[in-house]
């Protein structure tokens, strides 16, 4: 990515990269520092809400980072409060995320009571898988239009014969709208 690695204020895409654990190591501290800025923190919170919603509420993948981040925060406590109201889309997604999170928690609670840690872990893994599938199914059908249109341009499909069809059959729910 062409960008100034030493630029002080994190860009939204850097915050997104940080969340996914894909940020360049050399930018890591700088972006974490930048998160003290409320505007950046609002972006961070907003991305998490959206990310959680898309993942169906399972956010275990960022746990490692959260620990690191908390450690950094503890070293220099700062009050962080997003000022801006999240966009309507984020509110809708937050609602969806809550529903997903509640169902996830109750499902895990039900299935893990008799078992030990390993069972809980397996249950969580299954729940995550299920939520990943839910998230995929929740994609708007109209995006399938994009997928179908895009196939036309994928150079290697000439070799692969049926792959575009497999995607078409697998493309979750057909659009129910007129």
């Amino acid at each position, binding site marked *: 990515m062409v960008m100034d690695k030493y630029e002080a204020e994190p860009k939204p895409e850097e915050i997104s990269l940080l969340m996914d654990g894909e940020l360049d190591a050399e930018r890591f501290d700088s972006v974490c520092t930048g998160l003290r800025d409320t505007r950046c923190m609002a972006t961070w919170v907003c991305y998490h809400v*959206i990310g959680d919603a898309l993942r169906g509420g399972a956010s275990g993948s960022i746990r490692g980072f959260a620990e690191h981040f908390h450690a950094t925060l503890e070293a220099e406590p700062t009050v962080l409060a997003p000022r801006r109201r999240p966009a309507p*889309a984020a509110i*809708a997604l937050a609602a969806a995320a809550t529903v997903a999170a509640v169902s996830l928690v109750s499902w895990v609670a039900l299935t893990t009571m008799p078992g030990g840690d390993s069972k809980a872990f397996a249950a969580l893994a299954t729940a995550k898988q299920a939520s990943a599938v839910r998230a995929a199914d929740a994609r708007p059908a109209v995006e399938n239009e994009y997928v179908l*249109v895009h196939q036309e*341009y994928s*150079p*290697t499909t000439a*070799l692969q014969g049926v792959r575009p069809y497999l995607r078409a*059959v697998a493309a979750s729910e057909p659009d129910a709208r007129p």
Partner: protein
Amino acid sequence: MRALKARNDSSRREPRGAAGCVIAALFVAPLAFGQIPPELQRAADAARSLNYTGTIVYQHGNRIETSRLVHLADAGGDYAKLINLEGPAREVIRDNDQVRCYYPDVKLMRIEPRAFHNVFPALLPQQLATLSEYYTFRKAETARIAGLDAQAYIFEPKDNLRYAHKFWVDVGTGLLLKVLLLNERNDPVEHFAFSDIQIGVKLERDMLKPPFPAPPSDWQVRESPPGEVVTKDTGWVVKDMPPGFAKIIEGYRTLRGKQGQVAHLVYSDGLVAVSVFIEPSPSAPQPVGLSQQGGLNVYSRQLNDYLVTVLGEAPGTTVRQIAYSVGRR
């Protein structure tokens, strides 16, 4: 199948059929690569000219789906029927250029006249060069797939902006038996393989009939609008395109479910394509961020009054980088 259609198309479209160009991407490339085995050309030919029937296992993300494929080629062209074996039964019937998808669970038939058209424009000479600049091609191991002896070939990316592509072809007939897309950590992203296959069998056209001569009266029939790109300067640009990707088309499309025209720009590095769609922000809130659909990464973001969606068979970081560098010229 796409290759076959292109062969049919080429007689009435441009002298250089689209598949010709696609194949050129892989097979003119020997000049750049030094050597590309003729087996890959053979694979493209075999896919459209042989009769075969088999079970395909398609794996993407956490999902595994199995489908039954019947493919028949005769003097009238080529025909294929694909039925999924799990979940709600769905069928795709292709009769040369026309694709019909049947969804009995929702009483819906979709006609996709354009869905798999070969409109792939001629690859630019520099794209053929970038193919060898950004990928290493080599013959890999031999393996046994669906009971057949297969030879593997692999395109390995030289940077982390692309996936690796691995192909296994039947040594006997040249038919492609397995395809694997690997991410930067060498984990499978998408994979399809025949788990059993019969090649060169006698098939009857009856075996490829649609489930009904005409859809029942209570079914919805939906035909895609003519979906060709109207080539035009859209004023949109990708300012920070990953190296090796060149723009191959730019224009507007009319898409089902979309109000107004959607700007569509396609970039390719010779092996994969990345699409950029820009539409006026829909009134309903749209999910943004990264998601996967099959082997495709999809990244959506809001840009002022527009929704930008980037998708392609490329790592998430690549589609995100592209999404964040979309702007007005």
